[in-house]
């Protein structure tokens, strides 16, 4: 069903929406990060995504692979904090897995997301319940895969993924941080949403909106 495939334009729209989201929510993300981290997540993500939109504008990537690899490389060298290598790896791996195509069908997107997530796990060594972005990504990908397996198109599947991502994000509140600087706080990290998990949920919800249009 070609009309439901995810095109390069859709992905660019997604990135623009994610850019707006992290820019608008910069203070909120920073506030979350100031509770359990070093209070730079909002500024880092906003800066990174602004750089991403500039790169895309300059390069005009023609394929999904080219686009996502550009995003990854840009994030890696512009974010600064730990989210740079993590999100950078996520997009790089997504791009490599997608290859030189101009659109992704629902299973292609699943493969790309899975490759990206595997990169994040490899990089961050996080497990479920460590209070990281993985706690958002993992249930989202599970929901997406389950929907696609049940015959869903990319649109409804990513909507399910975005809902699961939000639940995953909310679940990080009561967790004890076990990774990153927040882990130094131990039990004192309880009661705060993880900033990375929060921005990851924004990543999926903006993808859902972009695909729905």
């Amino acid at each position, binding site marked *: 069903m070609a009309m439901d495939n995810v095109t390069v334009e859709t992905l660019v729209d997604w990135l623009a929406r994610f850019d707006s989201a992290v820019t608008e929510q910069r203070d909120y993300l920073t506030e979350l990060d100031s509770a359990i981290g070093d209070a730079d997540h909002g500024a880092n993500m906003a800066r990174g995504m602004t750089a991403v939109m500039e790169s895309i504008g300059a390069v005009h990537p023609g394929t999904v692979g080219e686009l996502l690899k550009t995003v990854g490389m840009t994030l890696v060298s512009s*974010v*600064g904090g730990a989210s*740079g290598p993590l999100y950078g*790896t996520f997009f790089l791996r997504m791009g490599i897995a997608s290859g030189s195509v101009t659109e992704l069908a629902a299973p292609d997107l699943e493969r790309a997301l899975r490759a990206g997530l595997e990169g994040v796990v490899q990089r961050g060594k996080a497990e479920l319940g460590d209070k990281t972005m993985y706690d958002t990504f993992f249930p989202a990908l599970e929901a997406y895969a389950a929907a696609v397996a049940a015959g869903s198109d990319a649109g409804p599947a990513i909507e399910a993924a975005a809902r699961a991502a939000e639940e995953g994000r909310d679940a990080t509140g009561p967790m004890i941080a076990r990774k990153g600087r927040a882990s130094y706080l131990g039990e004192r990290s309880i009661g705060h949403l993880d900033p990375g998990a929060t921005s990851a949920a924004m990543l999926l919800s903006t993808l859902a909106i972009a695909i729905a249009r």
Partner: protein
Amino acid sequence: MDLALEMVHGERPLIALAAGTADGRIGTDPIRVSEAVIEVASPDGVLVFMDLGSAVLSAELALEVLGDPGFEVRLTSAPFVEGILAAIVSAAYGADLDRVQREASGALLAKRMHLGEEIGDPGSPEAGPVGLASSAEIHADVQLLNRDGLHARPAAMIMAALTGLDAVLRVQRRDAAEAALEVTGPTALMAVGGRQGDHLRFAAAGPDAEVALQRVGQLVADGFGESTVQACELAADANGSAFGVSPGRVAGRVVRMVAPASAPSVEGTLPDLIRPGEAARIDSAALAVAEELQARAGMSTATAGEILGATAEIARDVGLLGKAKDLVLSAGRSAERAVWEAYDSLAADLRARGGLAAERAADVIDVRDRIVANLEGRTAQGLPDEDEPYVLVAEDLSPADTALLDPTRCLALVTEQGGPTSHTAILARSLGIPAVVAAAGVWSAPLGAVLLVDGTSGELIWDPDEASLAELAERPGVAAFSGRGATADDRPMPLLANVGSGEDARRAAVGRAEGVGLFRTEFCFLDRLDAPTVEEQVEAYREVLAAFSGRRVVIRTLDAGSDKPLSFVGQVEEANPALGVRGYRTSVTRPQLLDTQLLAIAKAAALESADVNVMAPMITTVEEAAAFVSRCHDHGIAKAGVMIETPAAALLADRLLPIVDFVSIGTNDLTQYVMAADRLVGSLASLNDPWQPAVLRLIERVGQAGQAAGVPVGVCGEAAANPHLAVVLTGLGVTSLSMTSRAIPAVADQLSRVDQGCCRAAARAAVAAATANQARSQVGGILGYANGGSSSSQQLAPYSAIVGARSASC
């Protein structure tokens, strides 16, 4: 990294730093890390160090970006600072990648052993404790001669000496129970922690064992090319008893005071004929010295001027000069020798009388040396003639010399003698020169050595390391005073100036002092045969009041006594002047003097618009306080208070404060009376220390009484000028601080960094301490944390560094 590089000679390993992001912010950029690896590419491999957080992830990602660069790239969890240091040194001396990584990983060993932690897993299996020397080994016992012992640089030199030898070396301290450590790298040597004078046993095994021991023995015998003077001991002694008396932390090259004159020859007797001419030389030389001192007095601050003026008088002493001339005329001595003998016998006399008289002996000797130098056609001994900035080290400094110090060239002052309230200390503070006194052994310091001086803590560091100097350079300068003292949480703490003249007051006003907390009026009375008239006094007071229109000015009535003799007060000589008729007590014997002064103050106050407060020195009883206050009120002076300088007044604070309008604690006298230690006796400096908990407890008592009665409690002693003590005083309930105006910026800066909770914590710690040193160090600890806290987050900037491990051909 610079430190490590300094330790290696010859070919250095390639090093690249990948810190910050592409646009210069804090953080790490994996791309930059991968570029850095390529920059130091080596077939021997590259070792990557990283600190925490994103640095780890960036380094891993960099490896992924690099793919296969054609040489081995390793990431190591070795400690960032110690590890890099160890790696650079071992790489420079030819270790391979494995060895470099092992050295780096074991780099905490020295620190762990120093701190007495269990060495369960030293991270460097080869460097772990091994058994005592086996039979196949030969050994050599050596004693460390160099001043700093087996520190990083000597350790690196030993490693270099061992390069290329087929020998296994072990080392142990002969006096310690620890087993021998295998010398796998400089960290093992440093872990031994040998100091100057320590006996070490080096054991070696293998074909080149003998050569290895020979080379090590030679290095040790040469003191590793370092100075072998007994400086460790000196520094330890100096730090043991030294007192910081004028705040500031600086480092500089040591310059000694030019040595004092030696005794002129006693040989020969002058022919009768030329004796009168020779005697006349004495008069002209003495006159020249007196005029020089008087001229300096005129150029100096009021404090210095007073002291210099008194010294000039010694050069004009007719009786003394007559005695010297007599020695020429009747005994045929040379003029130089005659002056030497006459002044010396007076000095000996004064010393024999002890106490305050003995303190004056130094001034007599100073004048003697100046006149003799003049006679010999030399410039007077004393301050070195140096253009480059220096740290001045002296046995003691005469007031004349101290007053002449140029703060732009003399970075700091360190003396063997003296106490916190000695003339030297007071003058150094008024000049804003950091100073440490009672630093035993400092006079024999090696010339040209670099000395770091902390005039707040009294800390002295000989030949400070790069890190200490760098920290010094980074220490932000104290900002100019904003004109409003307050704690970080904005509790106002008025910072006032101690002044002695209109000139002082104008200078303090330029420095934005919030008022005058102590106007010493005795300066108007000095050098006079009769009491100044009301008009003269009004004139002098108006000058000070005019400088602080609308501001608070606390005038202290005449504080005379036989330690500060005024000819017209007509005092008798006392055995214990500090316990005699002084301060307010003179108004009992000379009531007219006080009434005249109060009249003059009231007139001056009416002609100016300052907020005039008047207080009396040396109050001991409630009756005295009540009498003084009512006399002030009778003269129309609305705000009348007293100084709290005696233990009696402090102990009765709850009874005394309700009957006065304010009090001001004079910590110098309070300390000398509480501690029963004459503040002018240098050897009692450790007692004469406002950090003494007994003194602080009395101040606490006064602070509490002030809060209960709603009466302001100021401090106008030297304690207020010490930034750390200022925090303690604030926590003890003091409501204003008065000090030499130069000290205000440093005190304001310190107060602005602490909130009231921190002040109270510092006060509690100081009052609870058992000793002055404990109080000082505990408060130093609290404030070190508070001061460092704000900047520590910036220091956590994650960054990575790359160390290229290369074979070196040395």
